[in-house]
């Protein structure tokens, strides 16, 4: 089941005049890797808390899997929705509390009625999915390194075996290498288990290689929805949305200018999946120069 937002608005009680979300509309398919990007204060975090009804729309309606969330109406079985949509908040490692990693991982499944044995099996599986050793299970979460703690915290949400995993700035404060590893890990989860992964970030370049679908937020409004190559076409608008144009975009744009050649036609025609990784960019540059020489 897809996730469809229809004219969803949200205002906070403390500031009723300002729309934190301003008539947001989009459509996310099953099993997609989605990037939600935007500068700080653009409403990304508000949007993401709508996915499992931690926040409710003050106007409009949202369809999340088979749950319909309508402003002002009660949702049946919120708990089941929260099991199917796992939400990982910013700095999740700060939310660990149990004496052992295993107990922390079991917390979610047991809230959703799993028996102890089932919860333990889920915990072990989640830890393996996130790429951590099973030895950690008996350790105290407070003895782990920062990166391990974050992975454990994400595993604690994965342990509920959600269909949709929503993460708020999961790579903030990680070093560049772990950041890339982390995104690759999420991408693998998305592909191997057909989970919908939604990543909220303000770093466009880190999600570019993985996303099937991009949403750009600016001042509570959804200003862009589409694939990464479609965003590339509209790259010149990014500064107006208070975001920098990512490096691969800039490199390709200047190559297009130098060769007075177009990238889009070629990518569309050949049905290539745009990834904007260095090697993909190199290929495109090569192609741009090649086709120019043929024109001469």
């Amino acid at each position, binding site marked *: 089941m897809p996730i469809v937002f229809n004219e969803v608005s949200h205002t906070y*009680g*403390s500031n009723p005049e300002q729309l934190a979300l301003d008539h947001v509309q989009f459509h996310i398919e099953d099993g997609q890797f989605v990037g939600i990007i935007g500068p700080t204060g653009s409403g990304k975090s508000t949007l993401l*808390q709508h996915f*499992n009804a*931690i926040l409710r729309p003050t106007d409009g309606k949202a369809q999340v899997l088979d749950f319909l969330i309508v402003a002002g109406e009660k949702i049946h079985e*919120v*708990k089941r929705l*929260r*099991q199917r949509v*796992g*939400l990982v*908040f*910013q700095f*999740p490692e*700060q*939310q*660990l*509390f*149990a004496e052992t990693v295993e107990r922390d991982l079991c*917390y*979610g499944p047991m*809230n*959703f009625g799993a028996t102890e044995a089932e919860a333990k099996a889920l915990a072990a599986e989640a830890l393996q999915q996130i790429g951590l050793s099973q030895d950690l299970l008996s350790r105290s979460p*407070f003895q782990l390194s920062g990166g391990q703690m974050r992975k454990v915290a994400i595993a*604690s*949400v994965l342990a*509920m075996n959600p269909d949709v995993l929503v993460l708020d700035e999961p790579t903030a404060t990680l070093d560049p290498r772990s950041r890339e590893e982390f995104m690759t890990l999420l991408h693998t989860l998305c592909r191997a288990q057909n989970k919908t992964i939604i990543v909220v970030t303000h770093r466009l370049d880190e999600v570019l290689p993985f996303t099937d679908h991009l949403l750009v937020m600016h001042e509570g409004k959804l200003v862009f929805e589409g694939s990464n190559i479609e965003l590339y076409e509209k790259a010149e608008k990014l500064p107006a949305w208070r975001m920098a144009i990512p490096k691969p975009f800039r490199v390709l744009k200047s190559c297009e200018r130098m060769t007075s050649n177009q990238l889009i036609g070629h990518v569309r025609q050949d049905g290539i999946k745009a990834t904007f990784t260095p090697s993909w960019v190199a290929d495109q540059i090569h192609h741009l120069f090649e086709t120019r020489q043929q024109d001469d």
Partner: protein
Amino acid sequence: MQQRFILGRVIATGSWVHKLDPRAKMTCILIYAVITVLLHSLVDFIAVTIISQLILLSTRIKLTMFWRAVRPLRYLMLFIFLFQLFLEKGGDLLLAWGPIHIYSEGIITAVFTVWRMFLLVTFTALLTFTTTPAMLTQALEDMLKPLQIFRISPQAIALMLSIALRFIPTILEETERIVKAQASRGADLKDLPWKDKAKAMIALLVPVTVCAFRRAEELVNSMEARGYKLGEPRSKFFRLTWQRQDTYFLLIFVLIGLFVIWQ
């Protein structure tokens, strides 16, 4: 969560009360607190209520804002009211119903006690509504100077207080985020039965405490990195000056005090 927390929020209107020396305000509140305890007759109560509400009005902040400060205490006030009502046995017996006996004195004491609390709480809100925490702590530091004789550092107390005040909103915000994260993992505090609520509180308390400690450590390090050392002389951010209005303000309270004692 932060909206319910009304104390500790400054409302700037630039009235004369805002401009008073915080030391004057603090001293006055102390005198006022003593006065409210000394109130005995209805005349006292009415007089003090009128004067205090007039002073509150002169801050140009809506009176209802001050009254709202009482709201968190409503259950405590109700409890105290009932306690006095049922247990005070003086005057005439007005009502006897099973084990419940209500006497006329009981009603009077109950009303007066709650009235007293109302007077005190609304008025102390004046201090926090009209004085920034920084001013407040500096005034406190000045006023605690005599404690140095007992080797108690007023600077340390003032610092503790200012840090505590500073961190209230931060920790509330953090708590709110953790509550949301727990709800996402299927432990929604709102729809849990009482027994499980206590259990869920542990899941909340541990990360909040860990966060508070981590923050405290970071704060100490960053303060020391910028050269702060407790007890060393350092320049003050504000210079507090005692002006004529401060003396007048103080006089009002001394006069009310004398009036109440002579009554």
